[in-house]
């Protein structure tokens, strides 16, 4: 907190023509709106403090009080603030009068410690109303795009609300919520969502809502919209718009292996035909495969075909994308050969034990269900146009890293993207043998 004030004070020194400190602006604007001289008289905590601070006039003056130190800053940098303030603030003669008054005050100032800070109210009662409160909020919001110090500003404003008589006014609360910078505090992943990633701002918003609850103010739709804009709609990130990015994201989501790597085999191209319309000459193809899948594909028996199946739907919040799968049917039980463990592979412990152990009823920790074997999945891809030519292009792309694909016949089982009324049980609507890459044709098994 102190560091924040230091940096702010340094910036006030540096920034010309800009009131950076939040409370300075708040207090400054309120003061400037006040026409009474009493405002500037009682501007500081005590007369002596004012003089002392003016004399010190240094950015490195220490300030250990909390909410009030911004006002101390205003004292400390008194003249510089007004010099640094925007020209609009200095236009009226009252401001100059304020300045003059400020300078001519001869009483010395004391150094302000937290324990001596007394919150004396500098503003006259009849000038505190909703309009001036709103004016102060507006001034702060317009002073800096980045809204530096908005948290302290909002806390101070919340405290000041009863004096201005606006604590039961929903519109004022909405304006106060508007002070938060939007969309900065939206959490970007689930960990940020879970663990209160912006604790000060979130705590501040919660205090604001708590004060509303305290005074019995019911929030309305605008409150909700503001909160959503500030802190995110349930904190969920937006889906990427670009189809290649979307494909990449969703393929990573459905891949079982964190080592899986996404490859973009083809980017979308649009051609302009003679009539001037844009037609997609080639859709994007994004594929994913993990090293384990590559190994499994390498061990696949070339006599058995691999299947390209699709499109399967995948929903991400409200968008539905479709993916295709390269998989193989599981081998029938008689062809499944158990490779005997090589005892020399590991000398530390035996890999295979021939003991006849029985488990007690209370020790069975797996469900007694037969294991469904659906065959290995070798790769997945996503493309906007799922016709056979595109998928062939994908297989050719996969072949570069899995040369065995040249020798394995490929079956395509493509069904209509939207499931019809009654799905036929596993009957492929379009089954045909796939082409392999031309150099491998000589070795293609007869099919």
């Amino acid at each position: 907190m102190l560091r924040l004030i230091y940096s702010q004070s340094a910036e006030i020194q540096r920034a010309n023509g800009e009131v950076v400190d939040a409370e300075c602006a708040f207090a400054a604007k309120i003061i400037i709106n006040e026409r009474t001289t009493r405002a500037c008289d009682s501007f500081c905590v005590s007369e002596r403090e004012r003089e002392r601070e003016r004399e010190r006039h240094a950015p490195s003056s220490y300030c250990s009080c909390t909410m009030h130190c911004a006002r101390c800053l205003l004292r400390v940098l008194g003249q510089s603030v007004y010099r640094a303030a925007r020209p609009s603030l200095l236009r009226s003669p009252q401001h100059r009068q304020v300045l003059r008054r400020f300078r001519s005050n001869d009483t010395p100032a004391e150094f302000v410690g937290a324990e001596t800070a007394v919150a004396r109210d500098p503003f006259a009662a009849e000038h505190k109303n909703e309009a001036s409160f709103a004016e102060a909020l507006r001034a702060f919001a317009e002073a800096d795009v980045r809204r530096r110090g908005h948290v302290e500003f909002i806390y101070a404003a919340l405290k000041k609300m009863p004096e201005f008589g606006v604590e039961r006014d929903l519109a004022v609360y909405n304006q106060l919520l508007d002070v938060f910078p939007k969309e900065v505090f939206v959490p970007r992943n689930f960990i940020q969502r879970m663990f209160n990633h912006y604790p000060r701002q979130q705590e501040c918003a919660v205090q604001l809502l708590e004060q509303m609850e305290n005074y019995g103010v019911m929030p309305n739709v605008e409150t909700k919209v503001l909160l959503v804009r500030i802190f995110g709609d349930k904190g969920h990130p937006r889906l990427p718009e670009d189809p290649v990015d979307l494909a990449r994201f969703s393929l990573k989501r459905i891949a079982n292996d964190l080592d899986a790597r996404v490859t973009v085999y083809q980017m979308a191209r649009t051609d302009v035909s003679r009539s001037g319309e844009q037609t997609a000459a080639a859709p994007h193809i994004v594929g994913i495969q993990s090293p384990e899948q590559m190994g499994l594909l390498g061990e696949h028996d070339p006599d058995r075909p691999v299947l390209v199946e699709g499109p399967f739907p995948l929903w991400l919040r409200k968008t539905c994308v479709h993916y295709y799968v390269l998989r193989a049917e599981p081998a029938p039980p008689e062809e499944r050969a158990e490779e005997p463990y090589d005892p020399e592979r590991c000398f530390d412990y035996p890999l295979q034990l021939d003991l006849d152990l029985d488990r007690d009823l209370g020790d069975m920790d797996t469900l007694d269900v037969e294991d469904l074997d659906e065959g290995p999945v070798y790769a997945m891809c996503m493309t906007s146009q799922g016709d056979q030519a595109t998928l062939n292009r994908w297989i050719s792309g996969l072949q570069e890293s899995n040369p065995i694909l040249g020798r394995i016949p490929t079956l395509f089982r493509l069904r209509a993207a939207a499931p019809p009324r009654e799905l036929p049980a596993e009957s492929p609507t379009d089954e045909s043998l796939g082409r392999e890459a031309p150099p491998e044709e000589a070795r293609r098994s007869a099919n």
Partner: protein
Amino acid sequence: MSIILGPPSMRLLRSLQHHQYLFCPVLSRSVTQGEYRRPGKPRDNKPPWQKINFSFSKGLDGIRKHLTLLKREFFERFVGPEGKPILEHMLEQNRVVWEFRGSESLKQWTVSSDREIGGQSEVYLKLGRNNTTCFLYGTLRSTPPRDGETRYSGYCSMRSKQPLAAFDRKKHHDWSSFNTLHLRVRGDGRPWMINIAAETYFSHQKDDIYNYFLYTRGGPYWQEVKIPFSKFFLTHRGRIQDDQHPLWLDKINTIGFTLGDKADGPFQLEIDYIGVSKDYAHTEEFAYELYKRNPNV
């Protein structure tokens, strides 16, 4: 999940009031109606004796079926509780309750969608690949029906049928020695909700259901989901209740899966098996606050 249901609750209140005043049961419409009446459909005013229809062959089949069930029920008591030896009943840690291995298994389930209230969603149930899984698929449409009462719509669900003993007596699942629900599913990325309905005593507890979420991953790989029963929260007609209490596992009636995520389009869910298991490492009794949150002034 906030679905429809304003008028049925009002009707329930009215029928409750009638219950209070009537000590002798009078067969008036408002007392005996308990089913949901679709808005716009005319009331069914037929007296109960006109609703019976006789069929000889069906009657014989029914008698045979029920007598078989009765015989089985009688003799399984000599084996042990629920037909299993006592040691197995006491010590078992995992039990597969529903396993979809043939078309007979689909008969234990009912599917429904908002077509019953006039919406346009469709849902179908069939066996999946190689007849070894159940495949629930369909289309979701969230346009509300134009009956003037319903505000939201768009849901599909699959619910198990209540287990029945001989002569259609209600039987319950006894899962008191387990504490986790274990499923193997393959979804398409949509969020589902699991509903467990336990046996209740009072009539206004009739629509008390314990819910929890099932987020599916999507993709070609199966997903094993383990949800402890302590995480299920109580809802009544879709509205989360303030006074929560843990689910009592000794009399469970049905389990169901509902989809109502307001995303229009096709959906699919494949379930391999549903089982219950006892996780010794899970010691939580209930995941939510039990103290009274809105104290009466």
